[in-house]
């Protein structure tokens, strides 16, 4: 079985972001990049399948600038078999462009299972997995918290509001992954050193974001005012209830 895991490199979720002077980009200075958390959960699921069946081949694919290589090396250290870097000059955020570029790559091999994180935590678009499914005529089950292979079929739990939908389908299939139930593995220093010697298949792709829509500006959300401390023990409770009920009419 061939599995592709598509990952995006994003700023660390703890990053404090600064809008650059052009009001359209984020300052790159001091940002630490990491694998998009949802993509890492997807990769973990693939690695767990491989733990049980060593004939499984895992290819990790990532689109982005030079720095993406560092994340790809990490996935090799975690246990992926191959890494493909679709190298661009800049980071690409246009979902249609991303989907078409990744499509060109996944067509080159017969993948049975193609995994994505449900969304990237930088642009929060939540689109690419489904679009690639549509372009390629491959069924996509989105927002899954876990999946299993049973009798050569995929059984995936899709998280929806207040319940879980269990979908069953045939291969090939695309899954977009929620945060999983399994803990992520961390590569050892030894694995990381060994992975640095493995080669990453780099393919230069000449793509750019479309100009429609046009990005007009970035801004910070309105800052919340610091509120008030009502009290320091349970005697503050009646005042809190009064405020929420009478002043704010929230309860």
């Amino acid at each position, binding site marked *: 079985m061939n599995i592709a895991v598509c990952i995006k490199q994003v700023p660390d979720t703890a990053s404090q972001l600064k809008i650059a002077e052009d009001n359209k980009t984020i300052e790159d200075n001091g940002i630490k990049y990491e694998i998009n958390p949802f993509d890492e959960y997807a990769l973990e699921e693939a690695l767990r399948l491989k733990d049980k069946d060593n004939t499984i081949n895992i290819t990790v694919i990532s689109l982005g600038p030079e720095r993406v290589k560092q994340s790809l090396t990490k996935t090799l250290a975690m246990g992926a078999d191959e890494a493909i870097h679709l190298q661009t000059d800049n980071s690409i955020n246009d979902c249609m462009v991303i989907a078409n570029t990744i499509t060109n790559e996944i067509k080159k091999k017969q993948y049975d299972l193609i995994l994505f994180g449900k969304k990237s935590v930088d642009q929060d678009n939540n689109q690419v997995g489904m679009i690639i499914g549509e372009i390629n005529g491959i069924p996509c089950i989105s927002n899954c918290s876990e999946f299993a292979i049973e009798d050569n079929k995929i059984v995936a739990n899709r998280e929806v*509001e207040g319940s879980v939908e269990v979908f069953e*389908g045939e291969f090939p299939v695309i899954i977009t992954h929620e945060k999983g139930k399994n803990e992520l593995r961390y590569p050892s220093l030894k694995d990381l050193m060994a992975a640095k010697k493995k080669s990453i298949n780099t393919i230069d792709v000449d793509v750019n974001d479309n100009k429609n829509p046009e990005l007009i500006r970035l801004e910070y959300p309105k800052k919340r005012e610091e509120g008030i401390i009502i009290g320091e023990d349970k005697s503050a*409770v009646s005042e809190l209830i009064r405020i929420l009920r009478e002043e704010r009419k929230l309860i």
Partner: protein
Amino acid sequence: MSCILTVIESKNKEIKNSALELLSEARKISSKRNLDNKVIIIGEYEKNNSTQINEFGINALLTGSTDKISKYSPELYRDSLLHTINELKPEIILFSGSAIGKDLAPRIAANIGYNLVTECIDISIIEEGYEIKRPIFAGKIIQTLRFNKTPIVVSLKSNSFTIEKIEENEISIKQIDVNVSEDKKLPILREIIQPQKEVLDVSEASTIVSGGRGMKEPENFKLIEELAEILNAAVGASRAVVDAGWRPHSEQVGQTGKIVSPNLYIAFGISGAIQHQVGMINSKCIVAVNKDKNAPIFKFADYGIVGDLFEIIPELIAELKNK
């Protein structure tokens, strides 16, 4: 006349609450841009169950309701919608940010070659098209996008638009064809796992009562659950307690959980790390209870109590029960 097409969902044969925000926004857009205001419901729906849909200035209501698609199927929903879209050629299509909206909107956009913009929090009309605001980096930054070309597909972030009703009007209702293909290769919805007790989801609730590591033990979430029940609220959780296995991931609020904006968010024993903060900072009102007066959450909570939550929650429960 060109049209706006709004895709709404039903649950138990009624339209879902999230639809009301969409319908309010659709009416505004349709009147400003002089568009026919058409709405499509997919899933089972009976008009008699709710009359509220008449109060949004809709010109035509299309229903694809048949028991064949009572359960969600991405492909069947997609095909029924595409059929209608190809007939109507709307200039703008609105989806909700629900689980179905998130899954369906990209499929539709990919098939008809429209641009899709998700998680919108503001739509303004400009001469050539639309200017749309949406949060990125989980809300640390807001971006404004300008669409000079229509058509577009837009999905709205829940709890970001006000519900405005107008006088009731008569709506023409038309049943649309739903072609059910029998393709064996498509994934099928085998079962739906419901929690033992029906729970409100954090993404849909107007009040959320959340607990963090300060709850000390998973059993102590009984207090949170009891308070949530009294307030008709959803139970939320911080990443720390979800990772520890105390609470399910469906309750996690934050960057790798759900990004919520309820009217009231009450946080117990949550310090307010940035990843949690971005998930709830757009709540209309935030209340924090924490015994550490230096907890970051007090920097952005509207009301705080610095104290022992094991004293404060029982007191809240007692006083609220007492009215």
